[in-house]
């Protein structure tokens, strides 16, 4: 399984994301923001960091990178995409996910280990978790406050598209404690905390992050949630 990890100017966690893919048993393919060639990958991870220095708005300029144009096309065709932190911001700016990530309500950068509750296990990236499972992974952001209008939030809840919520404290003021969401098809997931930093006991608070990367391998191997969506490569 070939999992692409895109590096933008200012990406920070592309190395850790690539490492998490390898540890989970996948083959990492490094992708460059300026190159529209996705090199035959089966799925893509958009890593955390500060692409283009967060100029204008986080993710606003990265969304127009040549690699993103290809990824937007492929995601529309069903290719799984996981956006972590800055990657989540890019997915919202690209309109692959609804809503937006704004300045943390308290204005402080938050960097801590964070409990989440997994609320959708029907996505390409969370099918290895149990519904309602509490996991612990690091969160680190300055602009992680998820906002959307009430109609969008209601629709996300009604359609089971809230993938994870903050528990034991909301680190940034996100509406309805939302930490991660998915698109209608379940192939695109955006998450603010960092599963790629919780894959080894030496450096992480847990191994809970591994589930996201083993989930995608399972999805690519043919798993699907009741046939609602196929997580496999459909380019």
């Amino acid at each position, binding site marked *: 399984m070939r999992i692409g990890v895109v590096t933008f100017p200012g990406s920070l966690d592309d190395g850790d994301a690539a490492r998490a893919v390898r540890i989970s048993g996948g083959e990492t393919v490094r992708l460059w923001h300026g190159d529209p060639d996705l090199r035959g990958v089966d799925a893509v991870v958009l890593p955390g960091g500060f692409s283009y220095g967060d100029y*204008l708005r986080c993710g*606003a300029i990265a969304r*127009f990178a040549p690699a993103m144009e290809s990824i937007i096309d492929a995601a529309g065709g069903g290719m799984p995409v996981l956006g972590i932190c800055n990657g989540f911001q890019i997915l919202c700016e690209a309109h692959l996910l609804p*809503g937006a990530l704004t*300045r943390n309500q*308290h*204005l402080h950068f938050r960097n801590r280990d964070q409990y989440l509750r997994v609320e959708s296990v029907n996505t390409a990236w969370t099918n290895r978790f149990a519904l309602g499972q509490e996991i612990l992974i690091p969160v680190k952001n300055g602009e992680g406050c998820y906002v959307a209008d009430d109609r969008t939030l209601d629709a996300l809840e009604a359609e089971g598209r809230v993938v994870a919520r903050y528990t034991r404290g909301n680190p940034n*003021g996100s509406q309805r404690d939302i930490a991660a969401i998915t698109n209608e098809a379940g192939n695109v997931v955006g998450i603010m905390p960092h599963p790629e930093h919780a894959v080894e006991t030496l450096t992480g608070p847990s191994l809970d992050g591994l589930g996201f990367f083993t989930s995608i391998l399972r999805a690519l191997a043919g798993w699907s949630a009741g046939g609602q969506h196929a997580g496999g490569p459909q380019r």
Partner: protein
Amino acid sequence: MARVVVDVMLKPEILDPQGQAVANALPRLGVTDVSSVRIGRRIEIEFAGEPDLDRAHEIADKLLANPVIEDFAVHLVDSQVVDDTPAEVG
């Protein structure tokens, strides 16, 4: 020569913690009669030829503003007026 100015503001229903922080600092200046501060962004665009308001609107909608959380307004301004010259400061 005219220049196009795009003003971007957070939508009224979107919380502006930055504006709130500024508002909360005002009493330290002795200012107590301000009820709200909201912070936006002003972007000045110069076209190589004649200013193109339709194109500016497209640029604002696609890149300069995020319509999910922000409103924007596009208008022409005489560059004489917006030039950052010392005379204007006086």
